[in-house]
């Protein structure tokens, strides 16, 4: 199994939601691209995740 697949499989097996796993993969892509201003990208993805979670919470309420 290639290392990328191993990382993917390890992420899949984490006790986390699918949305959080997607966030992890987005962050890894940022690192893979070697983005110099990584903070902005991290912040965008983290905020997207927070907003989606809030909307989900509101829906459930």
């Amino acid at each position, binding site marked *: 199994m*290639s*290392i*990328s697949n*191993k*990382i993917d499989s*390890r*992420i899949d097996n*984490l006790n*986390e939601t699918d949305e*959080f796993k997607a*966030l*992890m993969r987005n*962050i*890894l892509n*940022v*690192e*893979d691209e070697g983005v110099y201003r*990584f*903070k902005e990208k*991290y*912040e965008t993805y*983290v*905020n997207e*995740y*927070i907003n989606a979670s809030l909307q989900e919470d509101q829906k459930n309420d």
Partner: protein
Amino acid sequence: MIRIKKIAFENYRQYKNISVSFDDNSEHNLHILRAKNGTGKTTFLNGILWCLYEHEHYLNDKDKALPIANSTAVENTEEKNSIRVRVNLLLEDETNNIEFERTQIFTVSASPLSGKKNAYPGSSTLKVTITPKDKPENTKVSEDDLEVQSLVKQYFDEAIYDYYFFDGENLKNYFSQGKSEKIKSSIFNISQVTLLENAARHARSMSEEKSRKSAKIKGDNGNLYDEVSQLASDIDRLEKENKKIDEELPELKKKVADADAALEGYAPIRMNIERRKVLDGEYRATKSGYDDFKDKKRVFIRKYLTLLNYYPRVKNTLEIIHQKQKDGKLPPSIDKKQVCEILENHVKNCPVCNAEIDENAITHLQSVLNELDVSSATSNYLMEIKSSLEEIVSECESFPDERDKLIQEEKYYVDELAKKELELQQISAFLTAYSNADGESIDVKKIEAERESNRQKITSKEQRKLLNERDIKDYKKEKEQKEGEIKKQEGKRDNKALLNRQVTILRRLSSSFDLVQKGIMDDLKDDIQKETWNRFESMIWKRNTFGSLSINDSYEITVLNKAGNEMTGSLSATEYMALAYSFTLAIHEASGKNCPLVVDSPLGRVSDENRENMARELLEVSKEKQIIMLFTPDEYSEDVSKVYDGTIASIRDISLSSDESEVERVGE
């Protein structure tokens, strides 16, 4: 699979002008180069290392070695001319041809004493050319230091160079303590674990940064909310109290009026009552005048607090203006700007009187200009503010008179009110003590006592109402301020809440990446351990000795016997070599990049009974991986040739020229 297609040497040590190709024409990607000791076997390996890393790691003693530039070429080169030394390593993978080419220019000069020529090195450069097989037009050439180093690292990380370019005679280095750390770090690099490590580190540093930011924001508005709520409750209480006073006052006033009417109807005291009526009116008018006076006094105090504060500076500025006026510098009689323009533009006639501006006039204007030290703009500004400053000074100087007037006025009100109050008290005292004749229907004493009581109640309630109104006004203002503050804080609090959420997510990300990273490292270690054991087991002829093999977190290998006792230190040279091969191939496998393996003295330390076994194992490996082996003729014994002859891709001999100065041929 990544394979070496060709290696070309130019003036590199004894490889003066040799090119060796490694064709992919067999099931087994195994190529053998045979050479006697001293012919250039290790130099071949060092040539590849020099090309990739600029270091010849397998040189015995660098300081005592011959120079890199080929000695015949140096001898044949004119003094002060240069020689190019070049090694070109051409690789291919599934999609690209990758060419590494190192070049170094040497300048030749002769010793003035012996006449012997030497080659002096210039800096060396590495160029990497990547040509896509399907789109050669998209060839990319890199010469930037960082970029080419990164490309070299991708294929053959120098930290573990000896796991790609293996020296069978240097086994002791393979399992030294420093080596295991390098292996670990290299596994980190090649396995993308650095990606996970960077993600965890970045998420951690961002969470710490955001946590610090959040801590700086005051999130608790509890006190402000309490204060606003307290103020609202106080305002409400006071407004209710005033409402009640408003309800009670008419009744009380009616009672006083009724009392007055009753008393007025009683002839013996009518004059007193009428006088009191007049006095009451006068008292109220004076009181109202005094209230107005108090407002005027407040305005006066506020005005002079400001004016007197600025008075010394204003007075000083005004004195400067006056002095300048006295000196004739203000207002400016001459427009400095206009004089400058006349002189600079050589105006022929005066713009004011139209007289001719001759040499004398110019000299005069220049002297006038020198005397003007204040520009017209500044002068005009000073003149403009002068009257305002004079007004301020005048007002300040009239302060003592104004203050005395106010003191007098206040004294008048205070005295008048006291006088009237005293007379009213006397009338009331008289009436309170008044004794009616028996049998009269009116009880003056009682009515007056009740009237006085009600009047005092009215005064007290009116005063209370006034105080309440003042407090309500103050409380409302304070409440408004605090509500504004809460609004501001709420904006910050929203930001704090977002920061705290981000911190939580970033911490979770960081710990999750740590977890994945640890898992991947464990997986890789397990894979390497398993692969090393499988290969080791198949290379060794002993079947009942070795039980297992383990690799710890620092990538140190331990070999155990069937009984579970460590026996790494008791391995024979052959077993040690098998372990080195097994570990090397396992690392290649784990790296995910199927790189070639170039081995000098591949079976040199392997005892006879194991040679065939190991040769077969390497032949098997060469189905999936390119292996280039450098043998001495003795090492390429009958046992080995039996396995390889007719099976492998190529067997070639390296031969020196008759004067032994250069490799003349690499061929069958």
